[in-house]
């Protein structure tokens, strides 16, 4: 049986990223803390006895479920409002936008807290699935298969979400300057 100290160490190692991820999804620190707490409870209850190597994707899977639930509830509450302010980033054909490798990119042109704020705003404006694909693939470093398992979708969907997320982020960050 897994010891408490091992679990504690794992949760401690992951909690800050989880909080930021939840905060980007909810846009609210308190909501994010509640979501992370729920995820911790769910993870410990269901997956604590799984092999330690599987913990990280499993934890993010639980968190992803919580974020989806939260997002669904919020959509129900704000259905009519959202219809007017819906972000159309996911609708554009962003796959056609090929980045220029020689371009330093939008973040390098911003400085310090301004860049952080721009990134937060851009990430916060992404649709949930795109943001999760970006964070899990780019920030957490999961491969496509692990990201797909975590998000409970196909690998093709992960690639599509990520591609759209990258294009939307780039466009939003460019627009921020």
């Amino acid at each position, binding site marked *: 049986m897994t010891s408490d100290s091992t679990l*504690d160490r794992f949760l401690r190692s992951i909690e800050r990223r989880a*909080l930021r991820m939840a905060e980007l999804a909810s846009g609210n*620190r308190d909501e994010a*803390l509640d979501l992370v707490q729920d995820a911790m409870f769910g993870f410990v209850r269901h997956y604590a006895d799984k092999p330690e190597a599987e913990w990280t994707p499993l934890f993010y899977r639980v968190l992803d479920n919580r974020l989806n639930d939260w997002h669904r509830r919020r959509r129900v509450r704000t259905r009519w409002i959202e219809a007017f302010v819906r972000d159309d980033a996911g609708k554009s054909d962003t796959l056609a936008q090929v980045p220029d490798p020689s371009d330093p990119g939008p973040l390098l042109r911003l400085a310090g807290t301004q860049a952080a704020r721009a990134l937060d705003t851009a990430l916060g404006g992404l649709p949930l699935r795109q943001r999760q694909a970006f964070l899990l693939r780019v920030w957490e470093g999961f491969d496509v298969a692990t990201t797909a398992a975590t998000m409970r979708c196909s690998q093709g969907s992960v690639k599509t979400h990520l591609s759209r997320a990258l294009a939307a982020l780039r466009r939003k960050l460019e627009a921020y300057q």
Partner: protein
Amino acid sequence: MNEFERQPWIDDARVLLDESTQALDAASLSRLNRARQAALAQRRPHRRAAWWLPAAGLACSGALLLAVVIWAPPRSTHPLIAAPGAHAAAAASVDGDAVAGDDSFDFYQDLEFYAWLDAQEQDSDG
């Protein structure tokens, strides 16, 4: 090569996200700590609620009370063999009578005479 490895700005995004985790305020970190502890606490085996403890305490108290009622000596109504508190009250009452009544006072003054008279009678009997 991954689609994002070709875009250098993504490394900056990664760095910024990492930095943002280090800039969390103390209140948030405290809540994370509490959440973690609470999550871990649910793994610990629940101690069965000691429902019998209050009942046992009540039973012991009842038995003790019963024992006291059964075996305690009955309270005497005689002032001189009553409880210690009663002794003091009785003595005070006697002193009060002695002070209050002139006859009683005379009686206590003649105690030596009565003692001498008693001794004389014993001598004559002997």
